């Protein structure tokens, strides 16, 4: 009976220790991210940092929700959702950064509005309208 009690205490202590570690890790990652998000750090780094922060916060909510008050849980969920939106933005920016770094130029599509034809730069549409043609006036009825 005594050993069982000791075992249960040890297990619960191990769980709470894990939660404390997670909480500390979250505080550290959150403060670093909040500081760097305002600076001019590249999107690739920010993407990595925001992912780490979301991971720790998700783990905290999933495994240590008993330690957190309901208001804190709500606040964390809102924060994760906000960070999720920021992460989408960083992903787009990181994509552009990679393209710039590897010198991948965008494909330019030119749309000629009068004819409605599409063409890439350097190729003109075959059916150009003649210059200066005015639309026909509507027929008058007597």
């Amino acid at each position, binding site marked *: 009976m005594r050993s069982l009690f000791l075992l249960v205490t040890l297990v619960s202590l191990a769980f709470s220790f894990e939660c404390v570690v997670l909480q500390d890790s979250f505080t550290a990652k959150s403060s670093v991210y909040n500081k760097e998000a305002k600076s001019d750090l590249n999107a690739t780094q920010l993407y990595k940092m925001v992912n780490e922060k979301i991971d*720790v916060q998700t783990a905290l909510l999933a*495994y240590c929700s008993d330690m957190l008050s309901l208001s804190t849980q709500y606040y964390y969920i809102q924060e994760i959702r906000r960070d999720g939106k920021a992460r989408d933005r960083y992903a787009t920016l990181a994509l552009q950064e*990679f393209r710039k770094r590897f010198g*991948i130029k965008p494909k*330019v599509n030119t749309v000629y509005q009068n004819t409605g034809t599409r063409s890439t730069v350097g190729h003109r549409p075959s059916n150009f*309208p003649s210059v200066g043609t005015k639309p026909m006036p509507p027929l008058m009825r007597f």
Partner: protein
Amino acid sequence: MKSLSLILLLSTAILAECTSTYNTFKVDEQAYLQVKKINVASFKADEIFKKYLESSHTLLEECPNTISLDKQYVLKRELKKLEKDSEKYKVAQLYEIRKNALGSRDTITVYRNGTITPVR
């Protein structure tokens, strides 16, 4: 007498294993419910989701009697549905973004009115 004690020992061992499987399932289920509530994809969420699927399968295969028939039926149906959207919590790694950047080009559309500039 000896065989009886052996059977008793074996059944106790099986029962203990099922209790441990059930406890693991309960922890994973609790974690998954939180992830479902958050509804934001992340590496951790993906990990928790996969863990939940695995522990549910283990429970249904090895110790189905630990949960009621009702719960078994509900769990089986839920698992079928979850397996369909297994990529729901997946997030692109940086190397995947890099690969995407190398493999595709951005497209810009320029609108022009279709007149020809007269030749001088």
